[in-house]
């Protein structure tokens, strides 16, 4: 299979869909002439012209709202949030309009809109530029929210999103644009609402999404090598719809779970994972579901503080030891 960066996987999905369907257009800040601050859209202006690759002023609420209007007229706009941190300025449009128009129009109108952009921390952008908003947006019915971590899923989910008749938010792993992975030739889609078993295992379920999955895979190797623990790693990847079933089935097998997220702990994706598992696999759990979340502080700038603010291998291994009732 061809190998491609995460960035190119997303770009090729958009370019191919734009070839296929004239109604697909892009909007965002500096996505055209500048090439996109993360170069995800680089070259698309030359290819598709300025009516389809629309550079916008710095007005996240305005252009997201305009994209909603376009979508209601049958277009398939893809909005780039330069980073999801700026999406708070568009929260009203996303939550009050995109998520609800189908409903309060009694099904007369729909919003086939994609909003995509980088999310998450790790490159010292500090408090205002570091968020993981999966749970924040995942809370609202009417939205679909996904967080692919592999180039394969990034492309497949992007195509799925563009063709979806409802608004889809793609929270990309901002730190991973340059990472490579296998991507099938030709078009394919990755269905929403299905978690991915990234590594099979029997002793403990390690659950996460986004760049945490890579961390979990590393931890799983260490656990195997150092402690003889065979961990199953699950990539949640679809936040809404949320795949309880895969998580629960895994825990029914392993009887133990650790959930890891960059997000803050309270009212988060990890809260949901723990709540779901205790609900549906109560009799299978040999220990409480452990959560490893981001530090309960706005994101700091200094490298050492930032590193300390996010989940690390030691914390996860400690949590695994606790659910496995093992000593360090």
């Amino acid at each position, binding site marked *: 299979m061809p190998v491609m960066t995460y960035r190119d996987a997303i770009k090729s999905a958009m370019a191919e869909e734009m070839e296929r369907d004239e109604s697909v257009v892009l909007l965002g800040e500096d996505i055209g002439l500048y090439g996109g601050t993360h170069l995800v859209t680089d070259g698309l202006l030359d290819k598709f012209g300025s009516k389809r690759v629309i550079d916008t002023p710095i007005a996240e609420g305005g252009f997201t709202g305009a994209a*909603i*209007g376009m979508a209601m007229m049958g277009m398939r706009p893809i909005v780039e949030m330069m980073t999801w941190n700026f999406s708070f300025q568009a929260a009203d449009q996303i939550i009050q309009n995109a998520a609800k128009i189908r409903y309060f129009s009694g099904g007369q*109108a729909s919003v086939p809109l994609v909003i995509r952009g980088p999310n998450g921390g790790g490159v010292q952008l500090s408090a205002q530029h570091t968020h993981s908003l999966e749970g924040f947006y995942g809370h609202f019915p009417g939205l679909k929210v996904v967080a692919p971590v592999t180039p394969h899923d990034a492309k497949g989910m992007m195509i799925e999103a563009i063709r979806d008749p409802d608004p889809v938010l793609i929270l990309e792993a901002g730190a991973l644009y340059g990472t490579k992975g296998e991507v099938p030739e030709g078009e394919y889609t990755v269905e929403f609402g299905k978690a991915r078993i990234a590594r099979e295992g029997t002793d403990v379920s390690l659950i996460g999404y986004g760049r945490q999955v890579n961390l979990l895979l590393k931890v799983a190797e260490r656990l195997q090598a150092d402690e003889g623990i065979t961990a199953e790693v699950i990539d949640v990847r679809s936040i809404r719809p949320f795949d309880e079933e895969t998580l629960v089935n895994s825990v029914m097998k392993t009887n133990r779970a650790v959930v890891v997220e960059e997000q803050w702990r309270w009212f988060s994706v990890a809260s949901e994972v723990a709540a779901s598992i205790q609900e549906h696999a109560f009799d299978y759990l040999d220990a409480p579901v452990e959560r490893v979340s981001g530090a309960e502080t706005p994101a700091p700038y200094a490298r050492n503080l930032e590193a300390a603010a996010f989940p690390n291998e030691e914390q996860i291994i400690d949590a695994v030891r606790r659910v496995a009732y093992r000593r360090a």
Partner: protein
Amino acid sequence: MATTQSSTKKRKSASSGANGAKPDVPGVSAEKLLEFYNQMVYVRLFEEACQRAFRQGRVGGYLHVYIGQEAVAVGLLDTYQPEDRVITAYRDHAHALLLGSPPNEVMAELYGKGTGIVKGKGGSMHLFDVPNGLMGGYGIVGGHIPLGVGMAYAMAYQQTGGIVQLYFGDGAIHNGAYHEAANLAGLWGKSGMNPTLFILENNQYGMGTSVERATANTDLGSKFASYGIEHEKVDGMDVVAMNEAAHRLSKQVRETGVPFAIEAMTYRIAPHGAADFLEKYRSKEEVKEARKRDPIGLLEQRILDAGAADEEALETIRKANKEIADAAVTFAEESPDPDIAELYTDVYADSPEVHSA
């Protein structure tokens, strides 16, 4: 079209004439004046029926009526073409009715009945009638303005020849959503990609806040100019003036793809919402004074002065429309509640469908 076409039924009510082919420039023939009169009375009597139903506790939630502002939507929607789209805020009954939505379904919506125009899911603030061009009724001040601008972009992109009539209030103009959307409209208009007709319904108040208390620059035209959007102030109590401007300017927007803004100077004779009892923010005298220029009264006078009809003819029109409003109430009252299963439909495209009456 992303808008589902399930309800393609075409509507005609006694008073609706909005969907027929229109001349480019309206004459103010006697016939036309009477058509306007018919429409304005239609809206007024319908709104009064809504208010009664609200006071009786049969309509819930919020209710915002259009009383006093009828000339604005009547004058403008007279220019509506099937390829056009209309979007507005929560004060949306008139727009639906004038575009041809069945009054029964509109009233049933207010009653929260399964026969409502959006199945009882949205209520007064969220009327949609996509087949007739109404892209909604929205409840968040300012929030719908970017949508309208985006729709206009889409229509230029798709080369449908349509325009968007985008209605919003004098309170909404101070909201950030307006600023961002108007700037986009101006910008996109430079390449003919934004056939938006902005319609600022300046009824002097945003809830209890007068224009003077909401901004230091009360010349609201300046708030279009700063985005490069041309604009014109029109007497919103005079349906003929509104209509003249509407024909001229909608034609211009249609032909150029460049946005234009009409500031319709009007007055909300009714309270802000049906629950706005005290009205401490304005005097009784002020409202009384405004009533002297009630758009229906003005038109009535004009018709009589011109000899276009006599009092008896007008009474006939009023009676016919009263009957429509009454029938709508009866229909709404007799309609069944929505099927409980409807709670879960229309969340996503593949939400469970309900196949019951």
